[in-house]
């Protein structure tokens, strides 16, 4: 699936992703500033999160609860230098316990991530336009 969109359409894009993703663990690929965190914020909104969601670059992982008590873990592996560090964070524990897992910068730790994931690649088409491709691997 490929979608081209601008920022004002992001909530519709989020609804579309939730309807299209067959896996609950989603990897977000794309350059810095392309809008990975912004898209994940829209996904969290679409899942009913009303509290402020912020970037987990520093905290590595943020946790949110949906109205029906589902758990969302939002990871950002940007600061990871050695892939092994994700084992020390307890990644496996999070993967087993989250209802939705959103992961930014997965390329930094790919060998420790599950294979059954939905991959989302975001590309900058122009200053306003982005396109994303969604590929289910489960």
């Amino acid at each position, binding site marked *: 699936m490929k979608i081209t969109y601008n920022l004002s359409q992001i909530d519709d894009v989020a609804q579309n992703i939730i309807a299209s993703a067959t896996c609950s663990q989603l990897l977000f690929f794309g*350059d*810095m*500033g392309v*809008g990975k*965190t*912004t898209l994940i*914020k829209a996904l969290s909104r679409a899942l009913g999160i009303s509290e*402020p*969601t*912020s*970037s987990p*670059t*520093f*905290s*590595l*992982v943020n*946790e949110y609860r949906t109205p029906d008590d589902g758990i969302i873990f939002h990871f950002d592996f940007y*600061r*990871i*230098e*050695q892939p*092994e*560090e994700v084992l*020390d*964070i*307890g990644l496996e524990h999070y993967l087993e316990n989250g209802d939705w897992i959103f992961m930014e910068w997965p390329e930094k730790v790919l060998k420790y991530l599950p294979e059954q994931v939905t991959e989302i690649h975001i590309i900058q088409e122009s*200053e306003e336009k982005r396109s994303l491709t969604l590929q289910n691997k489960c």
Partner: protein
Amino acid sequence: MSLKNDCFILAIESSCDDTSAAVLHNDKVLSNVVAGQAIHEQYGGVVPELASRAHQQHIVPVVAAALRQANIDKKQLNAIAFTSGPGLLGSLLVGTSFAKSLALGLNLPLIDVNHMQAHILAHFIDEEGYEKPSFPFLAMTISGGHTQIVRVDDYFEMTVIGETIDDAVGEAFDKSAKLLGLPYPGGPFIDKYAALGNPKAFPFTKPNVPKLNFSFSGLKTQIMYFVQRNTEAQSDFVNENLNDICASIQYTIINIILDKLKKAVKETGIKSIAIGGGVSANSGIRKAIKDGEAKWGWKTYIPKFEYTTDNAGMIGIVGYLKYQNLENKNSFVDQGVSAQSRLKI
């Protein structure tokens, strides 16, 4: 504040990257050890900075070093304070479990501390040359992971009145630096080059965020386009204009912060402003806040740098304040206490 209970407190902090232990005699910090500095040199070897497992390797030597530097025997301690949250669960668990075990072994009371409250109460550490704020005041915590304005009416009466809806200030600095090809984390480089450049050379627009909240991710995307556009026309554009670009970015970030602070002062009528968090080391921000004293009649407070970044000294001062029963409830917790990664102020 009149002193009720003379005490020695051991404090432990392990909420994110750094393991830290401190010993306080009342509101004076006798030692404040952060792993990654003295401990590295002493024990040698490379310890992965980010690993929560590193906390397990650090915690025993860090606590031993804090007691040794304070010249205090653990039998002299009156209580143990530890960070219970917010933070990375795996990291918090190390400090929490260690504090509980030590308290059980030494039969000492345990005091749980909120890391975000500690950033604010760090202003009450007794330190020569540093004045303590009086209530009420506005606390602004700015770091790699946090951007908050908090109304502080008493030691334990705090209300978050503004916070970031995306990136933290420190993250904005670090990621801007990365987009300019500077090493990560590059916030300090921006500060350094900004001092040599023209802050109005390249105008960036400020985000329009409601209330007292902050947003920095739009600035990051603006800088990305700015670099793309200009390097297409001139490949060495960034290097040729580095000082001016850094000065312009820093100027924009400072203005975003100042606008919200001014708005917070206007809405609350409180003109005392206390800054904390690692980004308070940024020289441009320090100057801008300080200038508010002459321009708008603010009274500003910036603590000693070692108490602004993640450190156990600030955990210890909260331990001390709770030991004095300033919280208006029993501040000691029992062995059932656990780490809470999502703890709010």
